[in-house]
């Protein structure tokens, strides 16, 4: 057991923190939101230059061979800064799908392009009727003329509006809810038959509704094994949970710090609100939730590469529940302790609150994963 960071890891952390400090102050962020895509293309290039976009990929694919801990450190920093760029969608979700499921050819084609910032990915798995049910895939892919034809729709695809390449799950056999028969495809976002509607989420991040009608792809578009895509989908989701857990920790750190600071300066009835014992204990309870949440984010990072699938899924479900509850408690109370001003878009606190709210509902919410754990009880 060892919680120390290697020199490389400390170096990575410092460089990302420095970039965020220089370019992602809350006032600067307001300008990033206003950019056409809703995020900063300039920073995207900076991430590429820093090597962040290739972080988890092997050197041979232009990456840095980083692991779950490196992703955790970066996502924590991103969480503190509330970044808007499609790092999760491209590097974590899409990147994991290709890294774990791709052929050498696919990896050579895509991973270097992610790493140098020239290609963005999105993970198009969720469907509107499915809510959080991971096997509820009704989008179909049928063999046609040596390739495949995809029909269906995907919903709330994170950063699905800007991605050049979509990782799309489709049913190649079986019925709705069947674990078997799901296959992942690499789909060019510009392909004919692909339509997208981009929009803003409650946390100011972008997402898209996606429709596929008669979209043709070749055999080389199949990612992983035909009909056996579910385990790969689960690995991608687990990577996403681990990454957003760390992001949530960063957000909790930041919002706790600013609430603490606010309680030191804000005066009411002739004294700082932080001199109220009730406020002090609330901040102490928020701190405890933050630390318990941090522990869970560490657990997720440690488990994301665990070979035993059941063990991995169970522990990551625990982390998801713990992070969801911690993020909700900390961010709701941050708003409460700020009072009216916390309810406006003018302070950062309301933005952290909404990011924690969205993260709790990415890949399934707390109740969904607690239900899974309840089913596991033995």
């Amino acid at each position, binding site marked *: 057991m060892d919680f120390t960071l290697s020199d490389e890891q400390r170096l990575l952390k410092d460089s990302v923190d420095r970039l965020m400090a220089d370019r992602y102050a809350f006032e600067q962020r307001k300008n990033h939101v206003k950019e056409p895509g809703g995020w900063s293309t300039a920073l995207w290039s900076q991430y590429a230059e820093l090597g962040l976009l290739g972080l988890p990929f092997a050197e041979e694919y232009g990456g840095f061979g980083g692991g779950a801990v490196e992703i955790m450190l970066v996502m924590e920093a991103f969480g503190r800064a509330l970044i808007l760029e499609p790092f999760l969608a491209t590097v974590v979700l899409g990147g994991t799908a290709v890294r774990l499921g791709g052929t050498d050819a696919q990896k050579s084609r895509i991973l270097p392009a992610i790493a140098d910032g020239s290609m963005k990915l999105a993970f198009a798995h969720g469907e509107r009727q499915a*809510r959080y049910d991971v096997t509820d895939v009704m989008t179909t892919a049928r063999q046609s003329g040596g390739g495949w034809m995809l029909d269906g*729709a995907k919903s709330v695809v994170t950063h699905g509006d800007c991605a050049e390449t979509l990782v799309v799950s489709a049913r190649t056999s079986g019925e709705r809810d069947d674990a078997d028969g799901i296959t992942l495809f690499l789909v060019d976002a510009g392909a004919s038959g692909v339509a997208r509607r981009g*929009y803003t989420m*409650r946390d100011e991040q972008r997402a898209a509704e996606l429709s596929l009608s008669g979209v043709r792809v070749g055999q080389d578009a199949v990612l992983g094994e035909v009909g056996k895509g579910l385990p790969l989908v689960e690995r991608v989701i687990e990577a996403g949970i681990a990454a957003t857990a760390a992001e949530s920790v960063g957000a909790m750190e930041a919002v706790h710090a600013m609430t603490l600071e606010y309680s030191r300066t804000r005066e009411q009835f002739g004294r700082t609100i932080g001199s109220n014992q009730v*406020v002090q204990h609330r901040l102490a309870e928020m701190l405890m939730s933050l630390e318990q949440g941090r522990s869970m984010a560490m657990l997720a990072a440690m488990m994301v590469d665990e070979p035993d699938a059941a063990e991995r899924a169970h522990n990551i479900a625990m982390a998801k529940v713990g992070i969801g509850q911690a993020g909700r408690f900390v961010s709701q109370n941050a708003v409460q302790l700020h009072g009216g001003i916390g309810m*406006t*878009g003018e302070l950062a606190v309301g933005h952290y609150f*909404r990011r924690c709210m969205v993260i709790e509902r990415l890949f399934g919410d707390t109740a969904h994963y607690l*239900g899974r754990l309840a089913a596991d009880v033995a």
Partner: protein
Amino acid sequence: MDLRFTPEELAFRDEVRAFIRDNLPAEIRERMRLGYGARKQDTVAWQRILNKRGWAALSWPKEWGGPGWSSVQRMIFLEENQVAPAPELSSFNITMIGPVLIQFGTEEQKKKFLPRAANLDDWWCQGFSEPGAGSDLASLKTAAKRDGDHYVVNGQKIWTSTAHHADWCFVLVRTNPNAAKRQEGISFLLVDMKTPGITVRPIISIDGSHHLNEVFFDDVRVPVENRVYEENRGWDVAKFLLGNERTGIARLGKSKERVTASKEMARTVRENGKPLIEDAAFRQRVAQLEVDMKALEITQYRVVSAYDRARDGRPDPLSSVLKVKGTELLQATTELAMDVGGPMSMPIWAEELAALSNDPDVGPEWATQATGSYLFLRAASIYGGTNEIQKNILTKAVLRL
């Protein structure tokens, strides 16, 4: 002792229910059923319909157009109106400025303002809070200097909800900066929002809605006849207004409506391959909320029925319980509705719905609106005295610690 409604009360409830069913415009009801907040025109239209029936000025004496209801009847009306769901009456007009004028106003002020307030011909807003004041109202700084038969008002108000809709604003101003106690030297003025020197700047809430405002007063001239009660005695008026009847403070009908809507929607979405409504954890969560709502309902009965008996002016300290538990339920039930929508609750469809487009369609409106009211009602435990302040009140008023 009997918790059940009397036959008369039941008959009254049916009458109210029937009237709302028959007279609430379908388009308004549908928007509200989807979780949209009432627009200005919705509130105006509905309040005028109610006023025509004599039900708008629900707590006012008959001579000023009140229906002469008991507070139990008022409670029944408010809940039926929320459950419908229908737009709520303008509380600024009906439960704030109306009673204030009836208690403190001159005959002229009553004649001039009350009928228009009841019919929402004038939309009123409240100019109390100031930057840095928050729950500490008495620290207000907005100054009014006497100049002949006018006051000249300078200063800033904040959290002024619907100021951008308002025709009139009742404002607390400091007319004597040298008063011994902060509460002294405050006066209560009625300000025409069209008066030169008033600037309204919007504050966008975290749900994206424009509900709150900053209001700036720059040499705004207010006729002296628009002062309510004596100069420098405005705090008495404010105390009366804030301590005034708090029936409906729990907004229980709104919570009930959110649970009903959540259960309806839970039949249309799934969890683990079954309709969410069949999910054991979801049912437990709903059951717990229904228990808490039932307890609050009866506590509210107790407070309200006591209110008619002992009208000693000062509000029942238990109304702090209604405020705390009521807002906890508002937040829990709006969170429930948002959770039913799941991932579909996270997008903001507003622009998408407005725009004509051949792009893929958008998810259910009720889901995105559910999140809107969840976000908006995070303020419920803040406004009207934070829930922490309410517990301070209970500590002093009831525990006497």
